[in-house]
Structures are given as structure tokens and as C-alpha cells.
């Protein structure tokens, strides 16, 4: 059984049908690469997986629980174990980097301040952000904001991580840092979905790919299967021949 199962997911905004029956699943410890053209609805799927968006129809099953039917206050448990790495970081701009990282721990744990501090320093080091703890998000570069966002999402040691274009706009070195981070988590058994346009990263970290096309999964398969199928849709998408 999948750690994440999306069954016949449908979602429209007004008259605009974005998803018209999306179905896929991700097994525990697996990393699924979700690709598709801009505006295909990748972010909407990730947002729905953490209850920020409600599907019009269909089921979203996270670790055995259907979250599509849950109310906001019932989603807290899910949100503690599923981390969403926002496309733009979504940092709290009235708080320092330190306070941003402390936020989940202060809300959901009874950790001592010294333990919180150690954890934060460890996370900052992991993403090459040493020395920025007292800065405000407004004073960080876009790439740094992204990494702080990633670090904040990791504070609670999530079992599932949803990455929304984590490497977009990063330099090659930091892209590599993030690839290694995703692989590390995968080795520890963390399940993840990676939304990206960055195909080298997708090939480096994903076990399988799903291609979102016209409101459905147009094609999906493991990397090996996809490599064996040079005429397939995904290959065409990667080569810029389909979107």
C-alpha cells in the first residue's frame, strides 16, 4: 500500500478545470518526480496533499488516512508529519531566520530552548546558512530564502516531504547540496514528491516520474522504464517536444 495515494483527483477553479481525474501513488521511502508544463497544476496537487486546497472529487490518502474529508483542525496531525517546501520559501517576514526555524518546534514540541538552538544551528549548517540566524527574510537572497524554507520544513523530521521546485533559481553548488539532502532523507526512509523542471535533479533523486498533462497523469513509470521508451511522452516533454 502506498504512503501517498491520490485517487481520481478532480479540481477546478471557477470554470477552469485544472485536474480531471489524477491518480498516482508513492510507496514508503520512494521519491516521485512530478513533472508537467507551467500551469499544469503541480503546485495545486502538492497543496492538496497537505490540505491547503480541497479536491472537488476524489480521495487523497496519506499514511492510510483520507485527508480530503478532514476539517482544518483535524489536519494538524497530518501536517506534523508531512512537510511542504514552498516554491518561494514562504518565510515569516516579521521574524528572524532563527525564529522562523524555531516556529514548528515551539508550536508542536516541549523542547528546551537550548535543544531548539542546537537543532537550528545544525539545520543551518546542513544548508550552508551559518551566521544568518539573526537576519530577517527580507535581507536574504532568493536562494537563501529557499534554503531557509527547506530547513524550516525539516525541523519536525517529517515522514513525507513535498518539494515544490526546490532547486529553481539555485546555483549548481546549492543544487547539489539539495540533491544530496533529498537522497539522504530518502535513505532514511522518508517518502517524497519532487515537483521540478530541473530534469538532471529529477533523474538524480527520483525513483519514478509522473507527467501531468491536460488534467491527468499522461505517462508514468520508473526511470528505467522511461529510458527504454524513447518515443514516450515523458521523453518528448524533456526534449521540449510536448507540454
Amino acid at each position: 500500500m502506498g504512503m501517498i495515494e491520490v485517487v481520481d483527483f478532480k479540481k477546478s477553479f471557477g470554470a477552469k478545470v485544472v485536474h480531471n481525474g489524477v491518480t498516482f501513488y508513492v510507496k514508503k521511502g520512494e521519491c516521485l518526480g512530478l513533472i508537467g508544463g507551467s500551469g499544469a497544476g503541480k503546485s495545486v496537487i502538492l497543496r492538496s496533499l497537505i490540505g491547503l486546497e480541497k479536491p472537488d472529487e476524489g480521495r487523497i490518502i496519506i499514511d492510510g488516512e483520507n485527508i480530503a474529508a478532514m476539517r482544518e483542525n483535524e489536519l494538524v496531525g497530518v501536517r506534523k508529519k508531512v512537510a511542504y517546501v514552498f516554491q518561494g520559501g514562504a518565510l515569516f517576514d516579521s521574524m528572524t531566520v532563527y525564529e522562523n526555524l524555531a516556529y514548528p518546534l515551539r508550536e508542536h514540541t516541549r523542547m528546551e530552548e537550548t535543544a531548539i538552538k542546537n537543532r537550528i544551528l545544525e539545520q543551518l549548517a546542513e544548508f550552508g546558512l551559518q551566521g544568518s540566524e539573526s537576519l530577517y527574510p527580507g535581507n536574504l537572497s532568493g536562494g537563501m530564502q529557499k534554503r531557509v524554507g527547506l530547513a524550516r520544513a525539516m525541523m519536525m523530521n517529517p515522514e513525507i516531504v513535498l518539494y515544490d521546485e526546490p532547486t529553481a533559481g539555485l546555483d549548481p553548488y546549492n543544487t547539489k547540496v539539495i540533491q544530496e539532502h533529498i537522497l539522504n532523507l530518502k535513505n532514511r526512509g522518508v517518502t517524497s514528491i519532487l515537483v521540478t523542471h530541473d530534469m538532471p535533479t529529477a533523474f538524480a533523486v527520483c525513483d519514478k516520474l509522473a507527467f501531468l498533462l491536460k488534467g491527468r497523469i499522461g505517462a508514468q513509470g520508473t526511470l528505467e522504464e522511461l529510458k527504454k521508451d524513447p518515443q514516450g511522452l515523458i521523453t518528448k516533454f524533456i526534449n521540449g517536444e510536448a507540454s
Partner: protein
Amino acid sequence: MASMILPLSAMFSDLVHLAGGMGILSGRILRDLFRGPFYFRLLMEQIAVVGMKSLPLILITAGSIGMVMSLQFGLGLEKFGGKLYVPKLVTATVLRELGPVFTSLMVAARVGAGIASEIGSMVVTQQIDAIRALGTSPIKKIVIPRVLACLITLPLLVAVTNIVATLGGLVVGVTELRLDANFYYLKVLGTAGLPDYFSGIAKSVFFALFISIPACYYGLNVKNGTREVGLATTKAVVSASILILVGDFFLTKLLWMIEKWA
């Protein structure tokens, strides 16, 4: 004819939408108000913000109101030899009407606008989503502290207005109208009964809701980017002002009815 009915019906359906949206928001506030966790520190911060932001403005308006009222009543009544009623009249109008209404309008312009634009930009930059994604509630973390801060601070600010406006009236009464300061002071004390205070303060509690709930509502409902933040801010101030001025009439009527009863 049709060209007039169409915009009118659109306006009506907008109004219904609006009332519904604010009703739902109020319901969620009420429900979450009594459910933990409670963020006492955030409330304290917001009280400080509301107080600090509006106090200078309120000192100036209150002083001016008192002085102008005293001057107007004084010059108007002098012809009829009614100058001695100035302290009574100024005090009654300030306590019951001008104090709460002007203070609330100032707070709407300063604090209501601030709340709407702050929440609006948090929506645009996905900070509200982040609060939810991290397993916390924007109602509890953002909305409730601001609504409660207005509820607690506005009556206090009205009390400040009452004092400063009365002093302003006294200063003009003494300097311009040649009234005796001691006489003025005693008249103020003699006029200002508990019902006058109560009526003003009771109004300000409602006005606090008229300011903070639309501000939070418009802020939270910003959808497409920064341009809408400015729009939300304007709408928040306009609807708060309308609610205060129209609400004042009904509240005045209601409070008089209660006073007659009691």
C-alpha cells in the same frame, strides 16, 4: 432602466457575499476563541501596536474636537446668554458621540488599514499558507490577537479621548469664553454621569469589531498579488467607517432604550 438594475443587483449580491464571508469569519473566531492553544504574547504585542499606532493621532483629534466644540457652542449660545451651558453640552456630546465615533474612525484609518494590508501581504507571500502548512491556525495566530487587541484597546483610547477633549474644551472655555475654570470643572463632573460613560464605551466595543473584522476579512481574501492589497486596505477602511457611522445611529437608539428601561 436595465442599466441601473444590473449594477444594483450586482451590488446586492456583493453585499450578501460580504455579509456571508464576514459572518463565517466571525463564527470561526468565536469557535477558536475558546480552544487552545492561546497566544497571550501575540495579543500583548498587538495591544502595544494598536495603542502606539493610534495614540498620537488620537491626542491631536481629541484636543481639537474639545476646543472646536467649546468654541462653537460658546459663540452660538452667547447671543442667548447660554454660555454657561457650554461645559455641560461639550461633555455630553463628547462622551456619548464624538469621543467614540472620532476615535474609532481614526483607529479604522490607522489600525484597520494596517491590519488589512499586513494580512493581505501575508496571503500574497504565502505566509498564511505556511502558518497552516506548519500545523497552526491563522485565525488563532493572526486574526484573534488583532480582534482582541482592538476590543481591549479601543475603549481605553476612547477614555483617553474623553479626558483630552474635555481638557481642550476647558482650555477654550477659560481663554476664549472667559468661563471660570473651577466652574467648568465642576460642571463637567456634574454632567458626566455613569450612563454617559457607559454609552460611549459600549459603542466603542461594537466599533472595535466593525474595524477589526472587515480588516481581517479583506486581508485574508486578497487573491491575486500586491495590487489587491491596496484595494483590500481601502475597502477595509471604507466599510469600517460606514459600519461605524451607520451603526452609531442604531446603537444610540438601542442604548437610549436600555437606559429608559433601567
